[in-house]
């Protein structure tokens, strides 16, 4: 089982590095938002720094959401997903490996890039640790919950990316706790509470999402 986990993990990384677009797309999107905001809204540092916590979090959320649809789609289209479902190994292991690999390549990468965005949007330096910590705890939840949506919609020929509609409502608590944590960090308030909440959400998602994803995949394929 550990072997399967490692093999899936390796394969996902290989795929991303070969295709590259999957890898850099969310990051480019993230950067784009940071570049477009000053251009479109206002270049004033004071104003931007007020916006920064929210904008970074909204951008991270959207970047994750947009990358979610591809998680199972290409496997579905080339038939690998069928093979996955027919494997005697427990499905949730593979699923968890895929989601975690996805997280490392989007969520973690976004987290590491966040200080750059913070800088570009004049986020006060005190906010940075809060930003990174909240993203670190929040983005895995986004990936896990998003994967449920991806699994539910993977078999659809039409009506495709319902995924945003399905997943967005579920993302909102993470957004609220996450951006509040950053705002708290900026104003010097304690942010332990928010981080604890984000951690609790993550624990819940880690416990329940793999089961939901596996069930959803089986349901989607069987049609």
């Amino acid at each position, binding site marked *: 089982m550990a072997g399967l986990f490692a093999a899936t993990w390796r394969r996902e990384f290989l795929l991303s590095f070969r295709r590259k677009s999957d890898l850099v797309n969310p990051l480019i999107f993230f950067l784009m938002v940071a570049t477009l905001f000053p251009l479109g809204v206002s270049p004033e540092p004071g104003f931007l720094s007020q916006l920064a916590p929210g904008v970074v979090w909204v951008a991270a959320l959207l970047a994750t959401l947009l990358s979610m649809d591809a998680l199972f789609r290409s496997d579905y289209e080339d038939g690998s997903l069928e093979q996955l479902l027919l494997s005697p190994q427990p499905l949730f292991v593979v699923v968890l490996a895929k989601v975690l690999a996805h997280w490392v390549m989007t969520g973690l990468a976004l987290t590491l890039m966040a200080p750059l965005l913070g800088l570009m949007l004049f986020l006060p330096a005190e906010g940075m640790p809060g930003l990174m910590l909240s993203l670190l705890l929040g983005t895995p939840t986004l990936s896990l*919950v998003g994967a*449920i949506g991806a699994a*539910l*919609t993977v*078999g*659809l020929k*039409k*009506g495709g990316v*319902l995924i945003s*509609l*399905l997943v*967005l*409502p*579920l993302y*909102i*608590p993470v957004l*609220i*706790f996450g951006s*509040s944590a950053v705002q708290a960090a900026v104003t010097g308030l304690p942010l332990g509470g928010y981080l604890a*909440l984000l951690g609790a*959400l993550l624990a*819940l998602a880690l416990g*329940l999402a793999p089961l*939901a994803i596996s*069930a*959803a995949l089986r*349901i*989607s394929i*069987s*049609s």
Partner: protein
Amino acid sequence: MPRWFYQLASPRWCYQITGSLLPWFTGAALLLLIGGTIWSLAFAPADYQQGNSFRIIYLHVPSAILAQSAYMLMAVAGAIGLIWKMKVADMVLKSAAPIGASMAVLALATGAIWGKPTWGSWWVWDARLTSMLILLFLYLGVMALNSAIENESTAAQASAVLALVGLVNIPIIKYSVEWWNTLHQPATFKLTEKPAMPAEMWLPLLVMVIGFYCFFAVSLMLRLRNEIIWRERRTGWVRELLKKQ
């Protein structure tokens, strides 16, 4: 498992029992809604602060309560459908979604209309409002997923998974949003306390709430019966039924 549980699982039994329940619920719903509306529009006293715009509450609160209850029902039906593979539960899930969604729309619309005279704006980003909006999105998601998947049983299972995931999230959403920003009135009906409103104000509200529940039952049964006929169209008893009609 008690016997009625297995009976419920039979679409045929379900069709028959809803057939005999329908007239009662229809009568009750009509009576309560008409009576409640007249009472609330013409007889209930105006609020000393908000004046007559207060009368919107008699639609607003029942629809808001129902929007939430309908989601519970949907998720419970989804769970039963997934665990016991019960067809009727699948059908209940599918039937409840549009009714719940329309109730959420009504709550949002009446709230927005009410907001204009009281808060001076159609929309504010307040906790109750936001969480009701999110609830509407959850409904729309379930409905969209259900209609996007062609195969009926696949659609039902997928929606059930989504409804359950949403159910887990509803308290989280509610809590997070509430804590994030609150402008809205706190709850009127609480089990532990007496309502703050005078009786002549909340009595019609109670009538309307019960009326809405009865109406929900009627609408649900109507949809459920259609669904049963459609899904069971190949069985002998539906053929018999069709011939008799």
